[in-house]
């Protein structure tokens, strides 16, 4: 089965965070903006080049690059 990550969440869809694969300070940053286990995230729109994409996370719109969103497992 293909891994569901935040990156391949289609625009307009809402998912729940399962697991973070990021390490170090990036992991800490993602946690701090509210990407803890079970948190909801909605993919709102993407930039002209398709990356980064903007997500609704805990009430705020936050842009993430594919390098980060690929490391976030969702369901």
């Amino acid at each position, binding site marked *: 089965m293909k891994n569901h990550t935040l990156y391949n969440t289609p625009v307009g869809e809402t998912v729940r965070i399962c697991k973070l694969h990021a390490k170090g300070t990036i992991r800490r940053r993602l946690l701090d*903006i509210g990407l803890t286990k079970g948190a909801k995230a909605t993919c709102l729109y993407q930039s002209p080049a398709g990356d980064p994409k*903007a997500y609704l996370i805990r009430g705020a719109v936050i842009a993430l690059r594919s390098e980060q969103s690929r490391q976030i497992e969702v369901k």
Partner: protein
Amino acid sequence: MGLTNNSTGSSANAFDLDIKKTSPNDVVVALAGNPNVGKSTVFNSLTGLKQHTGNWPGKTVGNAQGHYTYSGKTYTLVDIPGAYSLSAHSAEEEIARDFICFGGSDVTVVVCDATCLLRNLNLVLQTLEITNKVVVCVNLMDEAKRKKIEINCKKLSKELGVPVVATSAREGKGLKILTEAISRVAAANALPKGCWVVYQPEIEEAIDMVMSSLKNLKAHINLRWLSLQLLDLDESLRHALISHLGQDLMAIPKIADAIKKAKEHLAANGFDEVRLRDAVVADIYKKAEAICKEAVLYLDTEYNRRQLKIDRLVTGKATGIPIMILLLLFVLWLTITGANYPSALLSSALFKLQDYLLAGFAAVDVPAWLYEPLVLGVYRVLAWVVSVMLPPMAIFFPLFTLLEDLGYLPRVAFNLDACFKKCHACGKQALTMCMGFGCNAAGVVGCRIIDSPRERTIAILTNCFVPCNGRFPGLIAIITMFFVAKTTGIVATVWATLCLAFVILLGIGMTFFASFVLSKTLFKGIPSAFTLELPPYRRPQIGKVIVRSVFDRTLFVLGRAVAMAAPAGLVIYVMANLQIGGLSLLAHCADFLDPFARLLGLDGVILMAFILGFPANEIVIPIAVMAYMSTGVITEMESLNSLQMVLRAQGWTWLTAACTIIFSMFHWPCSTTLISIKKETGSFFLTAVGFLLPTLVGMLLCFLLRSFVHIFMGL
């Protein structure tokens, strides 16, 4: 584009925790909060200062300070940079953490965004672990109301154990209650313990183990918080602790031993470093969720549809980039068109005044050797600077500030991030680049919003590839004189706009190119993580925008230009009139530079003007004109047409104009910018790179263009 006294002046190095009290009895209040929650607006409303505000995360990068009095006591308010948490990932978050922990503030106000309170509580709860002298200010209540979010501050206050005040700082609501709450907390001798997050049992046990070893530590630090930090100590906090406590806790055997045992205890229960961090943040968020459940009511869970529609349009695949370019063109067109008429008016008025001044001085028998340098040197350059610079700035700055207030700039960063990523740089560089349009020195300081030191350095070194406001008027003048002179009316302004836009896009292109080259050579590395908050659009406060951009930015920049131009005018006059061996000193210098300058398609005078313009780019063109006029016939300088005649008489062709434009875009940064680069990087080497990089690029481009034209077009 935080271009104010604060960002470019003496306090640009606000990394330090130097508090400027009016008297030793001052109450020090720290203003903390997530980025872009309106801290600066709260700060301004309380202190009456004009700390620059803008709708994008990370615009306050230093510690701004101000004072206010409340019932006879003076409060020193310190606006610290926005931070998502106190675990410090970036230079700004480090400042924020160090100030809350060790800054010695009497009260910490945590400003929260009412529209996403949950995430803001993360910072509140972390702050409460350090101190209970906290006031929580839930700002942007007006926005929350519009989004149908109801917040019960009483319940929130009960849950958090500290005063909670609801405010709408932009409308000035709730600020009086805030000052009351601050004074109450400041005056209280003993405060109830604030809300603490209770972590999982194993973590609590580990905290206790470390805490018992710290019992004898005499320091104004919350020991529970310190214990938790010691379990997972990052380097920056370790250094901060050492300098604050005067000793390295890790070097004390008893403490080191306790930490080791506590870590073993954690490890035995499956908590390695990663799991510990995750668990800590997860527990904080769990607590925050529980609090929000009690105190926050979402009546409408749908994300704002109108905002989403606009965002999808301005970041769309087909529409995002064109809208950006159209906006740029529109702003430039308005600037050029709007500046034409007042510019001509100003210059004719100021030059008429020059005649009166000359006549007046002569009439009251002031000796000519005294008034001529003053009038023909100092006054004339000043007149030039004012008439050429003021109108475009007075139009460009407010327009730009409007876009900034609206919240458009983060979208620019979002759109351009892919390009920056290809250059192995950070998308936030788009924000600092935009600041560079205002002032490169401010742009350089603004680079603090970039987390990765490597990407920050790249952004700092490439900032002056975009023309600052000091260079705009000169560019506009040359373009108008040499590239659109044959046309008139609307065609001319449209054509001038396109030329200017092309020049700016060239600058942006060079920014990408230079970033790319730097990241492949001096600063190798992969792009780091990128998280950028896209704030909701906010209706700009037109009146405030105009007042702020005119008084705070335009007049400040103009004032600096005038301060630099006055002595430069005098120097030029003296150089032009000091004869050595039958030739003026000016001519000697210009002759000396001439052979080299010719290689670049310039001439000796232009190159000398660039060198003398080192203190401020604004004065380069005026100096060149002064120099020409003092060597040639003095002409009435009432319009660009007559100026063009002077320049053509000095041998200017379209190639000279093109090379001057290129060199104006790419040459050494002004002295203020270089000082900022030195301050921000702390390295002479990098400052030298910052000096040489644009200079070499400019020289190379000019040389190539000139050679190409000479060889293929026979000019």
